[in-house]
């Protein structure tokens, strides 16, 4: 392994994935910090606040994992990644997990060898355009100049959409979301397209959000979720079940208000298994019994995290929609804790 490390540096960095595969949990524990890849800044999803503390819907996943594994939700090193750098960062072991509105696709899972550990937001690609242009449907976009982020699924969906509708466009490839917004606002492109949630999030930061419309068409499926490297299943399980713990907590009515009370024991066995007062699910993960309790304790259950960061009462104002619990007709569904 020694020479692998040295010579790995000589080859293209980040591709000696095999070397970094095993025992991420041990690495994280030894380091005392979780390295979590996030965006370079999308309001509501991942962005440092005025005090430089990262906040957001994706950030909450990182913090929950850190709380479960290390017992400290602040023991996270947030690594900002662009659409271009995120996969290299993960494959090379620079980050332990990626929570950066990343779409689960076949080729990323199978060919790029990543393991998606669930979906924390069911999304689709949308278009945003200044209201003054008076365009109401994406099919009227013939000849438009479109800002896109390179290295995303967005780019490919866009090409497919315009091709199948037989209309032309001019792509303007851009590296980060912030630059894209800058160019869009300067009028260097007519349309900005990305995941609809990110459109809403970025529009919320505009001077005059109401001057921009998000068109009704959703042209793709973008299941966004956290991911880890292929090969380290124990670590994958931890990330997967931490997210599931947040989801299950909402389903079972466990929230930050009643967490302390319920962790004294309740008459619902699944709540007891989740919070570690019954059974030994934590030990099976290689963690202690209270791992899920700590994860939920950071910012509450899935619903609370959603409402606080991107929900209808925030400037971003996203409705639960597809992201409601399955019991409310949504797609958010966790396998049972047993």
């Amino acid at each position, binding site marked *: 392994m020694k*020479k*692998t490390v040295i*010579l*790995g540096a*000589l*080859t*293209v960095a*980040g*591709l*000696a*994935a*095999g*070397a970094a*595969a095993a025992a991420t949990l041990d690495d994280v524990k030894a380091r005392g910090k979780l390295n979590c890849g996030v965006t370079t800044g999308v309001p509501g999803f991942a962005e440092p606040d005025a005090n430089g503390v990262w906040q957001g819907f994706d950030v909450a996943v990182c913090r929950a994992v850190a709380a479960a594994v290390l017992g400290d939700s602040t023991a996270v090193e947030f690594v900002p990644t662009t*659409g*271009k750098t995120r*996969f*290299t960062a993960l494959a090379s072991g620079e980050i332990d997990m990626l929570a950066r509105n990343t779409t689960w696709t076949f*080729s990323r899972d199978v*060919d*790029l*060898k990543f393991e998606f550990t669930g979906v924390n937001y069911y999304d689709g690609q949308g278009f945003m355009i200044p209201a003054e*242009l008076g365009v109401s449907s994406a099919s009227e*976009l*013939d*000849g*438009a*100049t479109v800002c896109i982020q*390179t*290295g995303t699924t967005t*780019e*490919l969906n*866009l*090409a*497919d959409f*315009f*091709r199948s509708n037989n209309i032309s*466009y*001019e*792509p*303007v*490839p*851009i*590296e980060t979301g912030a630059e894209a917004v800058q*160019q869009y606002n*300067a*009028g*260097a*492109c*007519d349309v900005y397209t990305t995941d609809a949630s990110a459109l809403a999030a970025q529009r919320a930061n505009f001077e005059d959000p109401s001057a921009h419309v998000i068109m009704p068409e959703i042209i793709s499926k973008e299941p966004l979720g956290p991911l880890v490297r292929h090969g380290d299943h124990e670590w994958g399980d931890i990330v997967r079940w931490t997210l599931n713990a947040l989801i299950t907590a909402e389903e079972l009515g466990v929230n930050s208000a009643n967490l302390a009370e319920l962790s004294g024991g309740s008459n619902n066995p699944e709540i007891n298994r989740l919070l570690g007062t019954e059974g030994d699910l934590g030990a099976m993960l290689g963690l202690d019994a209270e791992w899920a309790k700590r994860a939920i304790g950071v910012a509450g259950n899935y619903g609370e995290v959603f409402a606080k960061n991107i929900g209808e009462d925030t400037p971003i104002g996203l409705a639960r929609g597809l992201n409601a619990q399955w019991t409310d007709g949504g797609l958010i569904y966790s396998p049972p804790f047993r």
Partner: protein
Amino acid sequence: MTTISDPSVGTTNQSFRLAMLLNDTRYRSLTFQFIALVAIIAFMAFVGGNLVRNLAEAGLNISYKFLGEPAGYDINQRPIEYDSQSSHGRAAIVGLLNTLIVAVLACITATVIGVVAGVLRLSNNWLVSKIMSFYVEIFRNVPVLIWILIIFSIMINALPGPREFKGDTPSASMILFDTVAVTNRGVFVPSPEFSNSFASTEEVPVTSTGMDWLLILAALVLSWIVATRVSQWASKTQEETGIRPKTWHMRLAIWAVPLAGVLLFLGLTWNIPELKGFNFKGGLQIRGSLLALWFALAIYTGAFIAENVRAGIMAISKGQTEAAGALGLRPNLIMSLVVLPQALRVIIPPLISQYLNITKNSSLAIAVGYMDVTGTLGGITLLQTGRAIETILLLMLFYLTVSLLISAVMNVFNNRMKLKER
């Protein structure tokens, strides 16, 4: 060295002993070179083998099959036909051509800027020379990426968007008799079209094809050959009679008539850009990303070339200028006939490096979304296929080949300019 080493050289036919490889200076350097070569090869083989083994361990293997698969993404600036169903290989070629386009444009512009600034910096006019040293110091001391970004953001924020050309009282309008539009998405200029293009058929009217341009090129080459003949004839006449015949009208005709004939035959018309829907349509769009990258590379590298030019000129001793002056040559003739031809010998070698720098720095293109080969092959293709090693190796090969070609061409030029010793 060789003289003291071996008294027996060429005298007795001493038989070769193995120890001579080390003791005999005739062989020693060869021995060491050989050892070094073997060591380098062994090291490379070890690194390569390690790479392949590690890749295999990680379940990856080197394969270039992806080059034949559909790319799936669009590219805005397409020198050759390309759409999202074309292959990754073709996307790489589009990127490569885009790299060459910006590199050639920037090299030419940087040379012009550099020569002018370099000569002017030596000017006796205090203000001019100070302005030029200001230019040189400002531009070469700020990283080129910053210049690219500065120029690009000035362009998108200061220039009007296509929307501002709309309406009854537009806040922006086209220039040069309504033929050129300067917008924050680039400059739209009229483009030539041929109504009798070779590729055009009754059913599919085509407005230009490679054949048309080849014909134009052929006309120009023909003109050039004839024009050189004419000036040879003029020189000969001058030598014989002492009087150089006036040839400018002949040369004008030689250049203009065939070209005009060909253009007339092809039916040249101009496609003038026009505001349609979201954007200007028709004509040729020189995109903002190309302009920003081109100018940033040109003014940045121009500052370095200016210094090379100044060094070259200063290397020519003042005595030469004075001697030429004593012979009655005027200052601009002294510069062009005496100083510059000699200075070129000093200027060209570093100029080669500057051209190579431009080519390599053009890979910063993605900062402004210009789709060069680093953006297509080394950017989107790499990301969408995950074939990092393969694409990076190809990229290295591309840049290496381009750089070596530039070096080769410039070295030929340098050899022709070199002092020919008799």
